[in-house]
């Protein structure tokens, strides 16, 4: 399985977590044709986005769909709790700590230039604090996001939280998790977890290389 994209993109890291958890061999590669919007790559994914996955003849895009494809490929080590209520909760936790957090953090991409709007950065910081408060409420951190087992909640939550910790300090937002105990415990445990710690390390290496290449 080839995954086009870089592992430090939280969307791509979701795929890495799911695939490593399920024991599915995969390699990351830059988009074919030299970029996201090359004709070759647009043929695979008309949105021109990563991650895009190729498994034999099958091409899949959108991280959530790729994750479901990986889940369906092998029955063992399911990402979803058996009980319907627990499975729904895991999805909710993943949405709050994953989607809402990252959608907020990614607003900072517009502030990377020299003409940074400090007011806009502060608005992002405030919105982020609000979602982190909600994430703190819903995350289990026992030690995984939804409880004692690695689930879909971790697949969504961990990459967003990890990317946030790497990215927002560049805008003067230091230690975004702050005194939120469960989130802090979750991230500390994740670093020591074989699967999650491995992905965190690879995300950080990828991020630092990108940061350097951008002179940030």
């Amino acid at each position, binding site marked *: 399985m080839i995954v086009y994209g870089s592992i430090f993109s939280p969307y791509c890291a979701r795929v890495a977590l799911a695939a490593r958890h399920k024991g599915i061999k995969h390699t990351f590669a830059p988009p074919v044709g030299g970029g996201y919007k090359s004709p070759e790559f647009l043929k695979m994914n*008309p*949105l021109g986005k990563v991650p895009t996955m190729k498994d034999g003849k*099958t091409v*899949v*895009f*959108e991280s*959530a*769909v790729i994750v*479901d*494809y990986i*889940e*369906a*490929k092998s029955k063992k080590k399911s990402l979803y709790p058996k009980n*319907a*209520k627990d*499975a*729904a*909760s895991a*999805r*909710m936790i993943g*949405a*709050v700590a994953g989607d*809402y957090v990252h959608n907020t953090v990614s607003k900072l991409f517009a502030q990377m230039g020299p003409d940074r709007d400090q007011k806009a950065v502060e608005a992002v910081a405030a919105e982020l604090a609000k979602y982190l408060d*909600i994430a703190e*409420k*819903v995350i289990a951190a026992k030690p995984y996001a939804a409880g004692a087992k690695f689930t879909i909640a971790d697949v969504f939550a961990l990459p967003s939280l990890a990317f946030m910790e790497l990215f927002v300090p560049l805008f003067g937002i230091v230690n975004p998790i702050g005194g939120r105990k469960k989130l802090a415990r979750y991230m500390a445990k994740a670093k020591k977890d074989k699967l999650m710690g491995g992905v965190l390390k690879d995300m950080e290496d990828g991020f630092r290389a990108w940061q350097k290449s951008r002179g940030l």
Partner: protein
Amino acid sequence: MGLILYGRILSPFLARCVIAANAKGVAVDVQVPKGGIKTPEFLKLNPLGLMPVLKDGRTVLYESAAIVAYLDAKSRKNPLRPKTPKAVVQAGLPAAVTDNYVQGPAADLFRLKRGTAKNPVDPKAAGAALMKGLDVLEQTLAKGKYAGGAKISVADCYIPPALVFATHTAAIFALGDIFAGRPKLAKYWKGIQKDKAVKPVVDAMNAMMADALAGRLPPLY
């Protein structure tokens, strides 16, 4: 006590849950939360302050994807998430494209017209994004009666509510016929509106949309 969905059918996120419930043969009662969705009582149910929220006895859930999955597990009728990798993608892709690239710009245009947009909306950019999203949706639709092929799936919960918004806003902002040049989408829309699970939802949304645009429906937030 039966299942309660808090919110209003005009919310495409809520509407997709109702289509799912209809397809599953699970009864849900849609209730408008008293005082709207930013009251302390509502925030206790969903700290995000968003609709829909599902209440099933003591179980409270928010986020439409979680609610649809929960409803899917409630009955054996019409499984909404296929099991094989290929079928998972065939149903999941049009659903994700609708969720991430069609519904958002259409809803932005609707809020702009209605005067409830929180952030500035550039109608040109939103219109272009909507057309692009519809192009990708056209490419990902299956050929069968349903978006994922021969059977109803999660895609058929997501797409029709977004198309209600897309058809109305395309007319308001003179974006042209959204089905022109998109034959699969045109055929799909014609067929799916007759589906037992979908029709009542689309009809109710259309009626409420008219009220909202005429200023007869105060927002819940």
